[in-house]
Every structure is written in structure tokens, then in C-alpha cells.
């Protein structure tokens, strides 16, 4: 029995499953201590996510931005850099989406493409700046990107607060033009006669019509695969990983370490900002005064952690994270549990999943002791 457990723990996948189980058990303890029946709570959690295709699609839609920030953190992480500034880069992406989406009229397909290119570049340069500061002055990227987060945060508030931007009587910028929106079906379509009969005719497409699902999902999968291919198969990816694991050996093997550090952060920041622009183009349509405090970048750190910095893993980690958050809301509304309890539960789960990579080593120790 013990041997079996040790063997199972050594495999990364079973380690994650094991961590999930332990996480759920401890999450249950947290719920019970708070005075809430964990069995009922988990029941709501699961039905909250899986009881309808619409709900599942909503989780996928919710997952897209944090998968992007997760990818950003993971990519930088693979190359030995800790991009804590994914949040700031994400915010710049949101600003880019909202501003160009409203002020620069363009034809439909071109408009989102142009926004994405701008967002990627702006986010990339912003993150690359942190790498440049490190190369030039030796300032650690963790410090500089945290500072840059605050600059982005207040910049967003500044932009929204501008007289020419803020919609009178509201706390947000004007809604972007419909040419910049990238949902499969527009929101208006849902409530039209035509839309309702369309859903009746094609029930399988219902979740595509009745949620904010859009091309962002396809782009998310594409970017994940692309980043994975870059890391695994290209020379650049090989160099970046070498620098990430051991920059001294990479330097000695005559790889351009400093240039790669900037490039890595550029890509990372670009990916994060893309996520921000996509959120504006598919869900929020504008930026708000308080929108900056939603912390997509921080969720991305958790996602990258769970995924062990693997780009494809980020998709699943993001879905898990978004699912927990979405299902958590269900517990909250059904059982009147305070947000804090839900957050503790999610926190415990994430903590244990984050510990999963350590489990194989733990198993080794267990094996050795016996």
C-alpha cells in the first residue's frame, strides 16, 4: 500500500490529483469551521459549474484572461524571470483596447487585429523595460515590475477620469465600437426574436449565443500552443530555457543572455497585455475606475504556479481556477457564505496544488527513509 502511494506520488499527474483531494478535504475543514456544511457547499460548487453548458462556457470565458496572464508569468518563469508585473501589463492592454476600440474607427476584422498588435507591443515594451533596468542597473525584476504595476494602475484611473473620456454620470470609459468586439454572437442578438429562434434551432450552439464566448478562446488556445512550440522547438526557446535554468552556463556557451532577457519579458508582457485587450473586446467593453483592482495578473501567478510553468498546463490550470471562482460564487449566493470563506477554500486548494511539484521529491524521501 505504502509502496503504491509512493509510486503514485512520483508521477506529476497523480501528484496533482492527490493535491486536489487533500486541498478539497482541507477546504472542507475551512468551510466547516466557518459553520457551513461542506458537502452541500461542494455540491453547489460542482453543480454551479457543471449543471448547464452555459455555465461551463462561462467558466471558459472567465478563464481566458487569467490563462493569458498565467501564460505570461509561465513564459517568463521558464526563462528564469519572475514577471510579477503581469497585472500592470494586463491593465495597459485593457487601456489600449478601450481607447483604440472607441477612438480609432476601423473596419471589423482589422480593428481587433490592430488593437491586439498595439496591446502586445505596449505591454511588451512595458515589461521589457523591467528587463532593461535589470541588465543596465541590476534592479531586480520583481521590484521594478511591482512598481510598474502601480504606475499602470493609476494611469488607468487617470485615463478614465479624463473629461474627454469618462462617460458623464458614470465611472467608466465609453463602450468600444462594435467593430472592435470579438464575440461569436453580439449581446444584442441574444434577446432578439431571431436569436431566440436560432437557439431553438441549434440547441448545441446555445452557450455560444448566450455567453460572451468569442474568438478570444480560439486565440487563447493558439497562443498557448505557440508559446509551447517556441519554448520546446525553436532555437530561441532553447536559449531562453538554458538561460532560465542556468544563466551562467548559457553565458559561457556564448548565448546572448541580456538580449534574451529583454526578449523574454517583451513576449511575456505582450501576452499579458493581449489578455487585457481581449477582456475589453469580448466582455467588459470599457474600462472602469475600479477595474484596475481586479487582479487578473495575480491570478495569473497562481495559474502559472499550478501549471508548473507549462504553457499547455496553463489552459487547464486557468480552467480549474476560473471554475473554482465561478462555483464559489454559487456557494456564496446559495448558502450566504461570506466571500472570505470561499477565498480561504480556494486559497487552500491552490496552495496544495502549488505544492504538487514537491510531492515526487517528498515521495523520494519517504522511500529513502523506509
Amino acid at each position, binding site marked *: 500500500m505504502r509502496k503504491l502511494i509512493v509510486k503514485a506520488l512520483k508521477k506529476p499527474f497523480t501528484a496533482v490529483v492527490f493535491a486536489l483531494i487533500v486541498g478539497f478535504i482541507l477546504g472542507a475543514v475551512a468551510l466547516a469551521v466557518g459553520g457551513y456544511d461542506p458537502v452541500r457547499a461542494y455540491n453547489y460548487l460542482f453543480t454551479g459549474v457543471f449543471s448547464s453548458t452555459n455555465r461551463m462556457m462561462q467558466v471558459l470565458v472567465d478563464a481566458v484572461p487569467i490563462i493569458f496572464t498565467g501564460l505570461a508569468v509561465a513564459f517568463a518563469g521558464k526563462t528564469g524571470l519572475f514577471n510579477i508585473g503581469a497585472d500592470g501589463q494586463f491593465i495597459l492592454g485593457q487601456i489600449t483596447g478601450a481607447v483604440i476600440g472607441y477612438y480609432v474607427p476601423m473596419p471589423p476584422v482589422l480593428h481587433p487585429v490592430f488593437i491586439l498588435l498595439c496591446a502586445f507591443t505596449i505591454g511588451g515594451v512595458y515589461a521589457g523595460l523591467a528587463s532593461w533596468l535589470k541588465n543596465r542597473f541590476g534592479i531586480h525584476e520583481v521590484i521594478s515590475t511591482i512598481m510598474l504595476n502601480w504606475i499602470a494602475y493609476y494611469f488607468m484611473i487617470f485615463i478614465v477620469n479624463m473629461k474627454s473620456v469618462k462617460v458623464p454620470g458614470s465611472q467608466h470609459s465609453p463602450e468600444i465600437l462594435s467593430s472592435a468586439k470579438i464575440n461569436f454572437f453580439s449581446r444584442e442578438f441574444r434577446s432578439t426574436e431571431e436569436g431566440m429562434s436560432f437557439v431553438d434551432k441549434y440547441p448545441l450552439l446555445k452557450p455560444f449565443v448566450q455567453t460572451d464566448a468569442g474568438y478570444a478562446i480560439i486565440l487563447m488556445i493558439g497562443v498557448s500552443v505557440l508559446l509551447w*512550440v517556441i519554448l520546446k*522547438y*525553436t*532555437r530561441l526557446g*532553447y*536559449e531562453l*530555457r*538554458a538561460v532560465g*535554468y*542556468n544563466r*551562467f*552556463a*548559457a*553565458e*559561457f*556557451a*556564448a548565448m*546572448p543572455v541580456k538580449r534574451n532577457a529583454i526578449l523574454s519579458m517583451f513576449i511575456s508582457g505582450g501576452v499579458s497585455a493581449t489578455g487585457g485587450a481581449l477582456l475589453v473586446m469580448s466582455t467588459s467593453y470599457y474600462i472602469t475606475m475600479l477595474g484596475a483592482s481586479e487582479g487578473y495578473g495575480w491570478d495569473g501567478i497562481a495559474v502559472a504556479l499550478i501549471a508548473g510553468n507549462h504553457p499547455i498546463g496553463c489552459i487547464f490550470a486557468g480552467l480549474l481556477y476560473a471554475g473554482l471562482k465561478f462555483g464559489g460564487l454559487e456557494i456564496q449566493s446559495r448558502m450566504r457564505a461570506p466571500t472570505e470563506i470561499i477565498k480561504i477554500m480556494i486559497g487552500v486548494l491552490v496552495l496544495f496544488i502549488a505544492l504538487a511539484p514537491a510531492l515526487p521529491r517528498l515521495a523520494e524521501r519517504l*522511500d*529513502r*527513509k*523506509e
Partner: protein
Amino acid sequence: MKQDPIESDVSAREPYAVEMTGISKSFGKLKALDKVDLRIRKGSIHALLGENGAGKSTLMKILYGLYTKDEGEIKVRGESVDIRNPKQAIKNGIGMVHQHFMLVQNMTIAENIVLGSELTKSLGRLDHARMNASISEFGKQYGLEVKPEDLIMDVSVATQQRVEILKALFRGVDILILDEPTAVLTPQEIDSLIVTMRRLVEDGKTIILITHKLKEIMASSDYCTVIRRGQLIDTVRVSDVTEKELASMMVGREVKLTTEKKKATPGETVLEIKGLTVKDNRGIPQVRNLSLHVRRGEILAIAGVDGNGQTELIEAVTGLRKAESGEILVNGVDIANGQPIDSHKAGIRTIHEDRQKRGLVLDFEVGENLILESYKDHRFTGRLNCISWKKVNEYACGQIDKFDIRPADCAEQPVKELSGGNQQKVIIARTVEQEPALLLACQPTRGLDVGAIEFVRNALVEQRDSGRAVLLISFELDEVLDIADRINVIFNGSIVADLDPEETNEQAIGLLMAGGGQ
């Protein structure tokens, strides 16, 4: 098996300091130790000899309570004991000094030694004056003099080792296990360590020495137990055997302790260094107006004690450090003050002294490490101008076979799982394959066992024979004398002598290394 000589040396009434019987230990499928017996005579220096991974450290970690044994019995001073952790080991009078020291860098020597049993004044304030005085006195008693008030981070490695030994003695230990104690020391420091060990033994302590260096065993030990692949091979009186016999016992086959080579036929000059001065991080010149040259088809060895400018010289040649003045000409092109890429382009390839920091990406697979400097090569290019891992693995399998890297199916295994000797083979396979104009080998056999050393030295001679220039930087005099075609002695950042190995000897070079030539 022959009769254990210790049995006949020890009188019946005197108990063994340590007696381990039938010790077995497995890690998963790997049998690390298989029914090993070990008897240690009180008041002796007993060497444990074996290749890397033979099981000698495992055996001692069991004695020190870091591992638990699968089966077997341990007696200390004739009494059966069950040691489950280092605390119990120390209670039983057993101490261990690890290869990697466990000292608090920003505390003083005295504070490190007394850690856990500090002397205090009223209100629990530390009594530094009394602690320093007692440590100073304590050190003198064993001939291990230290300055108690120095910070660990400011003192040399050799001093740190003394502190580790004192730490063990301070806790009342009388059986001392030293794990590869000389790996980090210079020749002089090794001599001084051996003197210390002798003195401790005269004082009634018992020392178990884990090592794979034959010379030190011959110079220091009374008995030697040889372990190979987890099996006890034999225990011998050191005075009864030769170095060569010990080597064959350890490796399990005949080993040549000297490298066979033809006379060198040097060609034109490949590397010429003229008046090079290099400063270290503190701005102190470590290489001072140094000049040397290496020709095709010869091995030039730079002999010298660690810290005489070798590190800065290597860094300047490989593009990691700026030169204050002077030229580094490779085939006539000056690469001083360049980047690593310039050194590479000039045809220099380096076996770095710190293979885990500079030579390998430990988390990379063996295949990935083998292409670390040639990943841009079209040989490894597949579809869409990407790296074809299939081609890399095929290449890696070929190299693994050619250079006898073990295990034989390690192409897709992280290089960190390989032994030190095999890691070095990976570096050599990679370096040699690129047919460098100049091969810079820095301490290429550091920490390797006899079998691997033989391999590395032969590889260097092969490189020379195929017409490359080889620059060897080594702190080990016998290595220098073994394979060099020409010896330059470095002292205080300058070359103080250019010698023909045929016309010199260890004593003469040793004197020059210590600055005696000036």
C-alpha cells in the same frame, strides 16, 4: 576473502571504535550497500575508498544517522546502538564533517562553534570575550588554531573546514567522519590537514576518511576499506599495499596512474598572451603583466596554487572579464575585452573548473547539454527551421556511446542525475566534438575518481595528437607532470618559469609555486 588485518592488530580485550556488520541499504531498485562489514580500530585513521557512487558516503550516513539501514548491526565501542538521527550519533561520540560545510556565514568562528551552548552573562547576554578565549584555547589544544572573532564569510575554505572539525570536537565527539575533506583544499592545505589528523589520532580520537584520492590515503591512513558498487572488496593495512593496487581494487580492473603519450610535435602558435593585466571584482590586479603562448599539438600546463590569478586569467580569455591592459591573440586576432561569443568565434572551447555552474545546465537532458554550444548547427535542424529533437537524440546516443557516458540510455535523462565523472564526460564530448583551435581545460579532473581521471587525461592527449592546442590549468602537480608537454608556473599573477617536464621535478615546481623562484 582474506583475513581482516584489523582483527589481528587489535587485542581481544580492546573493543572496536566502530563495528558495522552486514549493513544493507536500497534506494528503490538500486542496492546501494550489500551486506557490508566495517571494523574501525580505536585511535586509527581509516580510509573508505571507492569510486563516486560506490556507497562509501551512504555507509557513513547510516553511521551518522542520516539514513536508516535496511539490515545489519552497528556497535560503537563494543555496544550495540541504534542511531536514528545525527543528534543520537553525536551523543554516541560520532561526528561528521560534510563536503559542503554547514556554517552560518555572517557569524563569527566562535559563534559557529558554540552554537547551541553559548556562554552568557547576566540577562542572557552573550559573553563574547569568554567564548572567544575558550575557543582560542580549545583550538590550540588540537593544533587547530583559528581567530575566534573572524566572520566565516571572510575566512578561507581551509579555515572553514577547521571550524567544522572544531565544532564536532567541541561537542565531545571522538569518532570523526571526514567526507572528501581535501576536495576543496590546495596541496599545502592538504598537508596541513594530514598533520592535524595525525595529531587528533595521537590524542586518542578515531578518524574515518571518505575519499577517492589514493595519494592522501597513502600519506595519512593506517587502514583502508575498499567499496565497489555497494560491495565490500577488502580491508587492508595501508603499509602493505601500493597506490596501484588500491586503484585496481577500487575500479575493479588494471588502472594506469600515468598517461601514455608520444612526444609532442608542436606547430605554429595558436594562443599568445602578451603583458596581460586583469583586476578582480575588488579592483586588485590578480593577473599581472602575464605573457605565455600555446602552440598547435602541445599541452601547456599552468601549475600554481589556487588564487594566483588563474581564475581571472581564464575569465579574461573566455570573455567573462575585462582586461586592464595587454593582448590575448588567437591566431593573430586580439580577443581581449571581448564577449564570450568572441572567444567562441576565435575557436576557444573551455572545460570550466565549475562544471555545474558554467559547464552544464543541470536541469537539461543529456542531449540538450550536448548541443549547448552547437544548437544552431544545421545537423540539428528539422522542419520549419526548428530544432529536431529526434536528430539531437540520435546524435546524443552516438556521443554517449563514443564517450562511454553512463548509463548508456541517458540521452533524455536530466544531466543532474549523472555522476560527476559522467557529467564531465558530457562536457568533454561536447567540447571535443566542436574541434576547437584551443582547448582550455581548467581543473578538468577535479572531484573525479581514478577511472574518470584516466579517461579525461587520455582525451586531452588525444586532442593534442590531433593537432589542437591545449591549455591545462591545474592545481594538482601530478596531473601537470603527467600530461604536460611544457609547464608554466604561475605565481602572484605572473608566469615565473617555463619548464620542460622531463627536466624538472615536483620539488622544484613546488618551490616555484610557492614563490621561491624570485
